[in-house]
């Protein structure tokens, strides 16, 4: 096992790179290796994917080391098979460029892959970090400018932290009802 993987930092980088493959973002600093930097604005990592994965509520935390090691194993096999030379300074998966990360994750999440459920779970948690900020209170996340909620354009609540939309309707009939509608408004 390369030295990089012997530390928790190595595993963190692998999980970050995986989350970044699911919903990519811009590099957090110039030398950021885990985040591939293929998309403008933050991605799943900046959105808090690692916090969601590590949350006690989510139930993934006890499995994360093994999952990171598993990704590494697959990445090394993938590199050997495709004759990619890996950078010994970083974990194998982090060493892959974005298109190769994508190809490997496609393979791991394919309906025929025997371990797909584990890899899909990692992907699901990455998505809910970005789209829903599941690790933090939604009102606080919005106030703090959570990158995912921002990018999807999630509208903010009223001052009491509850959502209400006073204007919500075009306010007019926009189609003809089905001719067989019953008096109760149901299909016949």
């Amino acid at each position, binding site marked *: 096992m390369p030295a990089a993987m012997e530390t928790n930092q190595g595993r963190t980088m692998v999980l970050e790179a995986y989350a970044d493959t699911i919903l990519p973002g811009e590099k957090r600093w110039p030398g950021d290796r885990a985040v591939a930097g293929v998309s403008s604005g933050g991605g799943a990592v900046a959105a808090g994917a690692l916090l969601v994965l590590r949350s006690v509520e989510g139930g993934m935390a006890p499995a994360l080391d093994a999952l990171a090691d598993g990704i590494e194993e697959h990445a090394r096999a993938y590199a050997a098979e495709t004759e990619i030379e890996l950078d010994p300074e970083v974990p194998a998966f982090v060493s892959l460029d974005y298109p190769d990360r994508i190809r490997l994750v496609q393979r791991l*999440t394919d309906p025929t892959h025997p371990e797909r459920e584990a890899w899909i779970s990692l*992907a699901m948690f990455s998505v809910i970090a970005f*789209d829903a900020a599941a690790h933090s209170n*939604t009102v606080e996340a919005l106030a703090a400018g959570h990158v995912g909620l921002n990018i999807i354009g999630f509208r903010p609540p009223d001052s009491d932290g509850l*959502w209400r939309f006073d204007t*919500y*309707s075009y306010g007019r009939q926009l189609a003809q009802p089905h001719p067989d509608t019953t008096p109760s408004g149901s299909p016949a």
Partner: protein
Amino acid sequence: MTSSESTDVLVIGSGFGGAITAYHLAAGGARVVVLERGPWLSGEDFEHDFKFGSSSTRVFDFVIGDGMSVLSGNCVGGGSVVYFAAMPRAPRFVFERQGSIGRRMWPTTISRDTLEPWYDRVAEALPITQTSWESVPYSGGLFGAACDHAGRTANPVPAALDQAKCTNCNWMMAGCRFDAKRSLLLNYLPAALAHGAQIRPLHEVQHLTRTDDGGYRVHYTVLDDVDYRVEVGSGTIDAKIVVLAAGAGATPVILQRSEPTLGPMPHAVGRYFSGNGERLNTAIFDEERIRDVLGLSRPDGVPYEAYQIGKGPCVATWDRLDGSLPEYERYSLEQLYFPPGFGTILAQVPDALGPTWFGAEKKELLRSWQSWLTIFTMSEDDNEGVFGPPPPSGNAMRLSQQMLARGALRYEPTENTLRGWALSDAEVRDILERDGLSRVMPWTNDVVGAYTVHPLASCRIGDDPATSALDDRHELRDHPGIFVTDGSAVPGGLTVNPAMTIAALAERAVPGIVAAARARGVDVRYGAPAPDGGTSSRDAVLPLVRGALQR
């Protein structure tokens, strides 16, 4: 032998099937205990928050199976707390369906006409009202306008909603903060409590055994109120009658687990599961085309950008609910909202060069989330779902503290089901891609399989003992005194939202349960009014039930 509590009627689950039967039996004089695996929340407990551990995960159950994931309620009130409250009646042809068995799937005693008075009972109880175009949110209006533009009809869907209280916040899957959604917490359940019924939250039933007097002993565990994986207690209750209403994803599992003690179950227990033929498509709209083609614009001049605003599904097109079309080719299409997370992960990128559901292109798609519209197909599937061996407890292996679990349901869609989905996908595209309005892609089935919020038919009624677990009175074959009144009793896909039909069937089953309870010495009568005291629908059914009560 340890001493066990006892009651007349033990109800498992507090959704539609459980709340309705509990109310009528308690009001009729029976001692009723309801065991519910989820927590008991109301009003202010319902948070506007996606955080793990908020009401959005406490009240929800998401079970991943092989080829089918099932979403349900997990709280007092069951699915009524998390649902969207669209309550149409099922079209007439549905009751004539044959499905895979070469004969009518429904009992001969049930048709749209014979169910109508029971639908009326539910409509009075919740109550259910028609939705006006004035209260249809932008998303429903957009779907209606697109249907009209494509020469289709579209209807606002009747709903169990108090429009005056609704804020169109679209948080209804986390429970309604404003009591606008008329969940069972506002009608049947308080009325059941007022008549002495007991409801015990965080009590998960695991299996049943028999008692010496022909009744049943119900074995439960008590769950931690934060980490549902943790059991903090256990117990048993003896009952003369058991009403199983744990939902179509859970009821058959309890019966499977009880088989070693109760004896063989009917073949149809845990088979013939239907996902109500659900299928989802997401359209990504071009805002300018909305204005130019459909002439729509909000008061602030923006054409749409309003996916987040509203109250779930409000407008549907029923043009394909045509009884003269072949079976498996009939479906309704309904505009829908799913919050981020659930509602985004499976959406696919149109014309993707790379992966369709994740990656850089998916992230770009999310930037236009407010211009999305999700369309929900409810079609005639083939009852192809089968439950594997039951997990050690509950209905699935819980992975997270709340919500996420892995279950034993297998679902391999048949050619019939796939054909219905393909037809409906093409119809959605034809309506929504017309004149460049949007680009449409179905949700992927390659991540968590197909996806249903409408589990049905896993323990169904019917006339044929080989293909139905229950007789037409909802009594479990060969196990007298056990009744099943939830979505699992519905014979098959309904082509519309199912809760109204589940509820009507539960209402219809009550007189038979009353008769069975009386035969077991319980002093109970049928004839309670609606939970708020209304009597018109009750008076309409009384002449119909005399026979059942004399049995």
